[in-house]
C-alpha cells in the first residue's frame, strides 16, 4: 500500500523536473544561440512480489509472476542541438552558424568554452569578444579605424581601413565540433564545456567537411518552439495531476481499509 504512495510520488517528482526544464526553455525563447533542453526518464527497478516461474501447484508454474514497478527516475537532462532559425540583424559583428559547429571562447580563468551565440562585440583593445566580454579564440584584433568588417563563410575576418581600397585579412575563426553535442555541459551565458560524454573537440574550418558555414549579419535564434514547449508543458502538467490522483487514490483506499474496523 505504502509502495503505491511512493510510486506515485516519484511520478510527481519526475514531472516537477520536467516542468523545470520546460520553463527554462520557455524563458529562453528569445535567447540567441540557445539550445533547448530535454529531460529523459527511465522506469525504476521492479520488485518481484511473486517470482516468475514460481510453482502454483505440483505440476504448474506462473508464467510471469507479479512484478511491481517502483516508479520513475530522471536519467538525464540533455541539450537538443537542432538548428535555430536565422534572424537578420544587419549588424556586421553578428554571425550565425548554419549547421554543426561551435566558436571557441577563452574564459578569464584560461579554460576554453564553446558557444554558438555569434553576437560578437569588440572590447577596448579591439579584440573580438562574446557579448559577455569573453575573448574569442584564436584572438582577432580589429583596428580602431576599421571602416567595414567582413566575416566570410569560412570565418575569415577582414576589414577595410581608411585610405585603402582593399580589405586586409585580420584572422580566421576556428570551428569546433564534438562527437556528441548533447553530452556538452551547459554552463549558462550561452557557453558549453567539454565533458567525457561530449567527446574531444576537433577543430576545423567553417563551411568544410561537415562544419557549418557562417552568415554575417544574422543571429541564430533560440531553437525553442513555443508551441512544442507548451504542448510538453500540458502533458507534463497532466501527468503531474494524474500522479497526484494516484496518491489520493492510495490514501482513499488506505482510509477505507482502516475504517473497516468500526
Amino acid at each position, binding site marked *: 500500500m505504502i509502495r503505491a504512495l511512493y510510486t506515485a510520488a516519484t*511520478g510527481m517528482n519526475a514531472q516537477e523536473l520536467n516542468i523545470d526544464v520546460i520553463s527554462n526553455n520557455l524563458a529562453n525563447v528569445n535567447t540567441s544561440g540557445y539550445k533547448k533542453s530535454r529531460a529523459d526518464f527511465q*522506469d525504476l527497478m521492479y520488485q518481484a512480489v511473486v517470482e516468475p*516461474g514460481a510453482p*502454483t501447484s505440483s505440476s504448474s508454474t506462473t508464467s510471469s*509472476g507479479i512484478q511491481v514497478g*517502483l516508479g520513475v527516475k530522471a536519467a538525464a537532462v540533455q541539450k537538443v542541438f537542432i538548428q535555430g532559425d536565422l534572424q537578420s540583424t544587419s549588424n556586421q559583428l553578428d554571425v550565425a552558424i548554419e549547421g554543426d559547429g561551435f566558436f571557441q571562447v577563452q574564459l578569464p580563468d584560461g579554460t576554453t568554452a564553446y558557444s554558438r551565440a555569434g553576437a560578437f562585440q569588440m572590447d577596448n583593445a579591439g579584440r573580438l569578444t562574446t557579448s559577455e566580454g569573453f575573448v574569442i579564440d584564436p584572438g582577432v584584433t580589429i583596428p580602431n579605424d576599421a571602416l567595414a568588417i567582413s566575416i566570410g563563410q569560412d570565418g575569415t575576418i577582414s576589414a577595410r581601413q581608411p585610405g585603402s581600397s582593399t580589405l586586409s585579412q585580420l584572422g580566421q575563426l576556428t570551428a569546433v*565540433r564534438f562527437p*556528441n553535442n548533447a553530452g556538452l555541459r551547459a554552463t549558462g551565458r550561452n557557453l558549453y564545456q567539454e565533458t567525457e560524454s561530449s*567527446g574531444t573537440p576537433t577543430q576545423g574550418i567553417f563551411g568544410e567537411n561537415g562544419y557549418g558555414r557562417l552568415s554575417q549579419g544574422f543571429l541564430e535564434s533560440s531553437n525553442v518552439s513555443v508551441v512544442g514547449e507548451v504542448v510538453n508543458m500540458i502533458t507534463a502538467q497532466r501527468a503531474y495531476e494524474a500522479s497526484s490522483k494516484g496518491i489520493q487514490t492510495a490514501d482513499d483506499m488506505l482510509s477505507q*481499509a482502516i475504517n473497516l474496523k468500526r
Partner: protein
Amino acid sequence: MDRGTYSAASGGLVQLRKLEIVNNNLANINTPGFKRQILLTEKQSFESTFAKELESTDPFARGDHDRTPGSTNLQSVVDFSPGPIKNTGNALDVALHQPNDFFVVQTPEGPQYTRAGNFSINAKGELTSMDGMPVLGDGGGITISGPGALINPDGSVNVDGTPVGKLRVVRFEDTSSLMPVGNSRFKTGEGAAAPPNVEAEVIPQSLEMANLSVVSTVVDLMSTNRAFDLYTRMATSIDQVNQSAISQVGRRNS
C-alpha cells in the same frame, strides 16, 4: 466465520496490488520506451462453484470447502503494444518500427532488451543507453569517434558519411518471456534462447513514448478505487449481518 469476509478481503487485496501497478504506469507516462503493465486475475466463476454445489449429494455437505475464496493466481503482464512516436530532431534518438523488435544493451547482468532509443555517447565514444550501458551493434559495440553521427532508417550508423556500425535489432515472436528490470529495459528468463537478429527498421530522430494515455490510466485508478470500495462495503455488510445474527437471533420478546 463467514467465508464472504475472506472473499471480500481477497478481492480488496487484489485491488491494492492493482493500484501499485497502475501508479507505476502513471509515474512513467513520459518515459520513452515504457510499456504498461496489467494485472491479470483468474476469478472463480459462478458456474463452476454452482456445479460443485450440485455435485455434493450430501445435503449437509458444503461442497466448496476445498477452494480458495475470491480471486486467485494473480499475474502481472507487460502490454507490448506500440507507443506513439514523437519526433525529437535529435540525431541519436531512434524509434523501432515493428512492435516486437528490441535494441540490445550490454549490462553487467548480460544482454538486456529495450525499446527506448534515446542513446548517448560515453567517454570512450561508445553508443550507450541513457544510463551509460553500451548499445550493441552487429559486431559488438558501436564507437562514434568523430562529430556528425547519424542513424539511418536501416539502423546503420554513419559518422560524417563513413559507416561505423549497424544497430543490432532482435525480434521476440513471443514477448511473454520478457520481464521488466527497470531502466526501461527487459530481460529474458534464465536459460532462454537468444532471440533472432532481424533487419533493423528504425525511425531516425524520433522516440517511442510510453504506450499509455492519461485518460485510460486515470480510469484504471477510478475503477480500482471503486472496486476496493465495493469490497470494503461487502466486508462491512457481512459484518453487520453477523452482528445482527449475534445480537438479535434468539432474543426473546419481553
